């Protein structure tokens, strides 16, 4: 069991992601954010748990559902929101948007709009780490749906052959958009897919930061020792729809209620109360709320990206 103050820190991180995502939902409805976003409400513990196990210099490749990963890597919520709103302060000044943004200075190599598209890229980053002997480990996040893409199988195979320092993290939220895992994965077992590529593979409770962090740390130890890649399947659930157009016709309200009881925010709140830190938890909530409100204000007030510069930067100036 983690010391109470560490739990409080986890609570702050999970709350930040939750509140930012809720604001994004609102800003989408208000029309301040255009296009679409894939929110990770309910899945925050995976991002926080895995990123807690990282060190300075490690790198993360994210998926289409990547806001939480960026925030867990220390991303600035105002710059994230600015990116979604097409503002100059955005991480990519609005060129990428939700599914195509990166913050390499933080070790965040990018979200990715192609399911499974980031898996070989993470594998390549691990090839750099090994070839250049940088000592970095790479984490690659993707959903259960991505494990049916060719890139998943191709990349895990190469990483294992070449003993690359990469931890593949599958956020299994039960659905590839609307299609349940039982109808996309023969045999139903994602872990066995990874094990087939001769790497250590573990499953953990993706609603519990501590469980995720423990498993990720254990697997990363081997990754850092040069034994090669590893795989972590975090069982989780998204409380929101796949994207803004999702009417959630493919799952029951009972199922949602079942998972809501395991809400990572709720789980951590309870643990803090049990540890006698109710007051601190309430303070963390107030603090997160004002931090996110401030980020929203900064993003809204920031100048819009200049359309006259939209044609620049397709190729590098030599």
């Amino acid at each position, binding site marked *: 069991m983690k010391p109470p103050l560490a739990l409080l820190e986890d609570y702050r991180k999970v709350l930040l992601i939750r509140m930012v995502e809720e604001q994004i939902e609102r800003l989408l409805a208000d029309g301040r954010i255009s296009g679409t976003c894939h929110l990770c409400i309910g899945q925050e513990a995976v991002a926080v748990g895995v990123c807690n196990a990282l060190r300075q210099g490690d790198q993360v490749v994210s998926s289409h559902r990547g806001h939480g990963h960026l925030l867990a890597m220390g991303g600035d919520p105002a710059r994230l929101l600015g990116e979604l709103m097409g503002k100059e302060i955005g991480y990519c000044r609005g060129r990428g948007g939700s599914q195509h943004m990166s913050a390499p200075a933080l070790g965040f190599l990018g979200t990715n709009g192609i399911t499974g598209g980031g898996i070989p890229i993470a594998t390549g980053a691990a090839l750099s780490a090994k070839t250049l002997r940088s000592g970095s480990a790479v984490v690659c996040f993707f959903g259960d749906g991505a494990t049916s893409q060719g890139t998943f199988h191709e*990349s895990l195979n190469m990483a294992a052959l070449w003993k690359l320092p990469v931890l593949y993290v599958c956020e299994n939220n039960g659905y590839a958009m609307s299609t349940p895992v039982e109808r996309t994965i023969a045999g139903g077992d994602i872990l066995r897919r990874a094990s087939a590529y001769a790497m250590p593979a573990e499953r953990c409770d993706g609603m519990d930061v501590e469980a995720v962090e423990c498993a990720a740390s254990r697997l990363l130890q081997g990754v850092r020792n040069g034994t090669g890649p590893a795989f972590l399947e975090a069982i989780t659930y998204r409380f929101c729809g796949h994207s803004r157009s999702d009417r959630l016709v493919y799952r029951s309200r009972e199922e949602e209620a079942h998972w809501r009881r395991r809400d990572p925010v709720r789980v951590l709140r309870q643990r803090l109360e049990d540890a006698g830190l109710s007051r601190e938890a309430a303070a963390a909530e107030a603090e997160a709320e004002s931090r996110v409100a401030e980020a929203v204000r900064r993003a809204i007030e920031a100048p819009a990206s200049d359309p006259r510069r939209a044609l620049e930067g397709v190729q590098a100036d030599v």
Partner: protein
Amino acid sequence: MSEMFFSEALRAALDEALEADPTVILLGEDIGSYGGAFGVTRGLLEKYGPERVRETPISENSIVGVAVGAAITGLRPIVEVMFMDFILLAADQIANHAAKLRYIYDGQVNVPIVIRTPAGAGRGYGASHSQSLESAFLSVPGLKIVAPSTPAEAKGLLAAAIRDPDPVLFIESKALYNVRGEVPEGAYEVPIGKARVVRQGGDLTLIGYGAGVGTCLEAADELAAGGIEADVVDLRTLKPMDTATILASVRKTRRCIVFEEGHLTGGVGAEISARITEGCFADLEAPVRRVAAKDVPFPAAPALERMVMAKREDIIRAVEEVF
């Protein structure tokens, strides 16, 4: 100057890059002791070891994806895709990732990768080992496309492609691998984005690239015997395309034929023809003619394949139509 095969010139460029820059690595199927399907990387594994010359499983999309990930984190990977037809398996990583990351990430990363791949028919390899698919990638922003026509050009353009900060699709005409030519001594680069006029003539412009330049030159010799003198333009780089050199030649000759080994519809010739029409329509004495492969898959049997391929005779026939 020393004389070498096209494949040797390519190998020399790879060798010099591996020697000069420790971040350069090679990735591809059978590029190790086998030396690659066309022998271009022969001897490099022995010289630089398996970390620099990395043989891969048969996984084209992820090979290119791995190269993209490596490129944004400090390496300069050179990928060999065994046949250009197989490029389609990697189309996602080329078009959706390699070509776009620099722009969508607002210049926070560059993607310095080279994807070398052999193209062209005429060997009886059949429909899935004979295509020239460059036109499919012409409309992908962020990508550069290069196609050398001689050993000297191959070495210089490959050296430039390797040092280029952007992703380069580097097309090697299969028909050229066993062609010999003079190659300058030492390291040099041929700049990307500049076409060259390889033959001067006032009556007609023939435009080609890769092995097509040789075909255009042969046709030009044949035409000269009949009193027609042709400019022959070697495009060298399809993207970015050197429109200025094309227009300068066509303004002078007023007639133009574009030759390509790929299929006619939506081809490179269509793009060039559009640029000429937009750029110097009033100077034209005749419509721009495209000589390209028929819109039919390449059959395996040599006699059938020849019917589909674009040939020197097709250029001669097209010339008769523009005079």
